[in-house]
């Protein structure tokens, strides 16, 4: 079906030399680009999801009560009260040292006793992770809790800061998907042109075959087989090059695995998709060639 079986003696009806000229090379380039775009798309989509779910259920409560003692008490009380709630997965008070260390990176005095840093009226922070999906309900419950334990504190959902980043990464993934689609169309166009060119080149043979009683099916199988084989070479070459590039990138990536970068791997589904693409491409090429050939042959009596 994809690469039709044609008796050896019939194969010789087409001359031995390459049927499709530069087609295998063009297909190889398109296949390589398609796979790279697909890999980028899968990687980006996965990191967008990972970031999305990591930040979606997390909020930070910022307590800015002026009196430092009350502030610390409120933070401790809130942490304790929150941790006891069924809708809270975990609640953690952020240490003053941790805050100072973070701020120190901006103030240029991360290592220890900085009088400026020590004198800053830093807010008390409590990180809270919700349980499950019902976030708006949890949010209301938390607001009530905060009003009781630390009036005037602000609740900051993390999705507010990192949401746009996740969205941007998500859009890039969609763009990559669009590129995959466009390159698939371009590959199909190349196959159509190849099939038409092959018909043109061998028109005399085809006419002859028709006149001695060959069916469209017989003629189509002959050409489809050759075009499918030629494009399969191109697809195989493109796949090998793309795989080499992806493995190289993956190897470099492993060296800097940390934070968000670690989420950008392809995962088993991603690799399966990338392996399925070349096979789909071969099938698509063969079917495109077949349809083109049948349509063209119909125009000859």
């Amino acid at each position: 079906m994809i690469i039709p079986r044609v008796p050896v003696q019939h194969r010789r009806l087409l001359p031995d030399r390459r049927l499709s000229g530069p087609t295998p090379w063009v297909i190889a380039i398109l296949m390589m680009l398609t796979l790279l775009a697909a890999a980028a798309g899968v990687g980006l989509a996965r990191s967008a999801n990972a970031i999305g779910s990591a930040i979606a259920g997390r909020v930070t409560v910022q307590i800015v009560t002026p009196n430092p003692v009350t502030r610390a008490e409120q933070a401790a009380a809130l942490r304790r009260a929150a941790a006891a709630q069924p809708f809270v997965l975990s609640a953690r008070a952020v240490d003053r040292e941790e805050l100072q260390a973070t701020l120190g990176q901006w103030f240029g005095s991360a290592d220890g006793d900085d009088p400026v840093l020590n004198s800053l009226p830093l807010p008390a922070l409590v990180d809270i992770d919700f349980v499950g999906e019902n976030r708006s309900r949890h949010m209301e419950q938390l607001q009530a809790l905060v009003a009781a334990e630390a009036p005037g504190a602000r609740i900051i959902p993390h999705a507010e800061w990192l949401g746009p980043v996740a969205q941007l990464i998500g859009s890039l993934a969609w763009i990559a998907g669009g590129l995959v689609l466009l390159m698939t169309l371009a590959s199909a166009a190349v196959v159509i042109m190849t099939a038409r060119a092959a018909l043109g080149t061998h028109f005399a043979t085809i006419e002859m075959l028709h006149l001695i009683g060959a069916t469209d099916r017989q003629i189509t199988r002959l050409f489809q087989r050759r075009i499918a084989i030629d494009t399969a070479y191109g697809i195989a070459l493109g796949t090998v090059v793309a795989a080499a590039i992806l493995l190289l990138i993956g190897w470099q990536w492993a060296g800097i695995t940390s934070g968000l970068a670690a989420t950008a791997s392809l995962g088993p589904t991603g690799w399966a998709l990338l392996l399925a693409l070349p096979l789909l491409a071969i099938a698509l090429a063969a079917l495109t060639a077949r349809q083109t050939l049948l349509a063209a042959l119909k125009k000859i009596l």
Partner: protein
Amino acid sequence: MVEFDGVGLRYGPDAEVLCDISFNLQPGSFYFLTGPSGAGKTSLLKMLYLAQRPSRGIVRLFGEDLVNMPRQRLPGFRRRIGVVFQDFRLIPHLSARDNIALPLRIAGVSEEDLSGPVGEMLSWIGLGDRADARPATLSGGEQQRVAIARAVIARPQLLVADEPTGNVDPEMAMRLLGLFEALNRLGTTVVVATHDIHLISRIENAQMMRLEKGRLADPTGALRYPPANRA
């Protein structure tokens, strides 16, 4: 066998190259088609071997209407017709042997079953030792013989030959004509377009059709050459 009734043919918007062609070919008969160059012989034969549908009129072949026949039924009919083209139309990258074997292979004959007949045919046309030669390395006459061998190898019910002896010496022409005659005796209806008067006189009982400017000069098809009972 073959019936043309009021057939006309035009290529594109030009005037008809054939008009009001009516005749009836009897099974097992031998016909010559003559006429000056450009009279429309090849065009008429093209309709016979199903390379061209008529612009008007009725064409019946083996008892079936061909004008409205769906495309996918044509291959079955074409396998019952052998054609010798005016320009041979051998497939250039195939050997003489493979060119001759082509109709059998298309019809699905197995390699064991076809090697015998193809070999015999090759030696019969005197090309036994050139079986593996490509058409380009054969002389015009040799190519013509291969083209004829290809047309007759599958024992067609109807044999259509367009100037089949244009490129061979008179002796070979007679030999090839003998092949047609032998096939005719086995029941094949033969239609040969030719200018060669000598050829025509060699076949007994052959009937002659003459085309002039796209019209059949003797629509009854009864005219014989040499005209037996005319002054």
